[in-house]
């Protein structure tokens, strides 16, 4: 709750949240972030479309969860810098009583979230998703979230920042075990699997993936792309809702969905 007087914001080191902000045309980024973002766009020109598609996926998922699944509690892990169409705005437009906790381990992200997103039914906390018990035991989470009722856990474009040696499926499982049956999990995740419609050789796609991963070594969080089977593993203990883990653009598309699938997998599962 108290501020951390020793916490710092280092704008000289490229930061994934601010790179993402730049790709979404935000203004909360610095030269180091833009430099990496421009290199990313040079390697993968579709990156800008993919992050837009990821925001669109998030919007469709939150609408599905509030409208069709009746979920009223959300925990957005690795929420990133506030932008247009934040989770509570989407959810509360459907259900004004929806409650949302934003969680991020980046000090700048958390101050922005507290200043710009927090309200009666929303909170932003400074915690690391690699420590599920600390997130779940946080007093502000306890104030807003009732763990006897279904909770939706959102892990959007964040698990690809957790390397294998930190056991990301294990982390997700620890969150899962704290959630009652009927809760939901949604994940989106970078991949180097080639969608049908991308005219790329496996070698070219592999090279692109490797270059993107190398580029993120320069940032505060390295990135690891994963194939579909590994993304599906995050849903252990969940029943995937239709259409399962697919390219995010193909997950229950609406009129505004992009026509060029690829880049990220995404899905929604219901806790057994």
């Amino acid at each position, binding site marked *: 709750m*108290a501020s951390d*007087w020793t916490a710092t914001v280092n*704008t000289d080191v490229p930061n994934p949240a601010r790179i993402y902000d730049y790709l979404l045309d935000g203004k909360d980024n*610095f030269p180091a972030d833009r430099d990496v973002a421009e290199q990313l766009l040079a390697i993968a020109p579709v990156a800008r479309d993919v992050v837009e598609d990821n925001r669109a996926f998030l919007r469709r998922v939150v609408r599905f969860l509030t409208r069709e699944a009746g979920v009223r509690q959300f925990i957005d892990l690795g929420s990133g810098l506030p932008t247009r169409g934040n989770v509570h705005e989407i959810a509360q437009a459907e259900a004004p009583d929806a409650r949302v906790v934003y969680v991020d381990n980046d000090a*700048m992200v958390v101050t922005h979230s507290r*200043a*710009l997103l*927090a*309200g009666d039914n929303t909170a932003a906390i400074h915690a690391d998703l690699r420590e599920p018990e600390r997130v779940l035991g946080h007093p502000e989470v306890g104030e807003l979230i009732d763990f006897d009722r279904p909770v939706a856990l959102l892990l959007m474009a964040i698990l690809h920042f957790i390397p294998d040696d930190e056991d990301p499926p294990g982390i997700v499982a620890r969150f899962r075990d704290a959630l009652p049956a009927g809760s939901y999990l949604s994940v989106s995740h970078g991949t180097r699997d080639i969608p049908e419609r991308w005219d790329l050789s496996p070698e070219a796609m592999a090279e692109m993936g490797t270059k993107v991963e190398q580029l993120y070594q320069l940032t505060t969080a390295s990135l690891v792309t994963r194939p579909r089977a590994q993304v599906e593993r995050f849903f252990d203990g969940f029943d995937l809702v239709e259409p399962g883990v697919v390219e995010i653009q193909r997950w229950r598309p609406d009129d505004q969905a992009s026509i060029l699938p690829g880049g990220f997998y995404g899905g929604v599962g219901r806790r057994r």
Partner: protein
Amino acid sequence: MTEGRAVGGGPTVQRMLVGAQLRRLRTDQGLTRDQAAQAIRASEWKIHRLENGQVGFKDRDVIDLLRLYQVTDPTEVAEFLALAREANTPGWWHHYGDVLPAWFRTYVDLEQAASLIRSYEGQYVPGLLQTDAYLRAVVQGAHLAESAEEVGRRVRLRLARQTLLTVEGAPRLWAVVDEAALRRPVGGRLVLRGQLERLVEATKLSNVTLQVLPFAAGAHPAMVGAFSILRFADRELPDVVYLEHLTSAIYLDRRHDVERYLDAMEQLCVQAEPPARTVELLNQMLDEL
């Protein structure tokens, strides 16, 4: 230079200022953009771009618009034209002379066009959140020799500015205020009490975020003084830094300069107490007063 925006002649602060003044003159007359467009035989889109400072100003257009807005005093028209011509020249960071009402007015125009106002105040409570009595004490403190009438005029001018936060489409104010500003009994203990109560009320507005920077935070990046950063909704418009001095105000829009201030602001916000804790501290200060 607005670095990285030179291609296509992106807006400079001065263009935005001139554009913002044109917008104010138009709305003061109760005219729509479409009505203004007809007067200069242009599209509504062009008026939009002129008012955002996204295109250069032609003398002819400015003269026609000023006539439509009933600005007819030849000196006033000439001054406005000079400002508009100067604004067409890129490469600018400026320093409005020592005529207080003029530069204050321009700041108010820019402030109204902003979608987000971030500010750090070290000495007093942010102007947009000051009470009448506190504001009067600030103005009196700054202009000891002035007549009561002049003080009253300045107080009214600044109070009028506060409606900004409650109108439809109001910008968001995100202010970091140093503990020193909240402890200094400007106007005396009672006035300060009223002011602190007002701040607690202000934090209930959905578009106001307040963070106290406590003494305990120690050294911080804004020890040189107060500053504000204005952000505009339009993607093309750069952030603008505003620095107020005794006899002038400075606007910075060069990306390199602005980013130094943004960096400092980010650091301040991380060091300062979160909004919820700030309300607790304000109530604690009230108890101690």
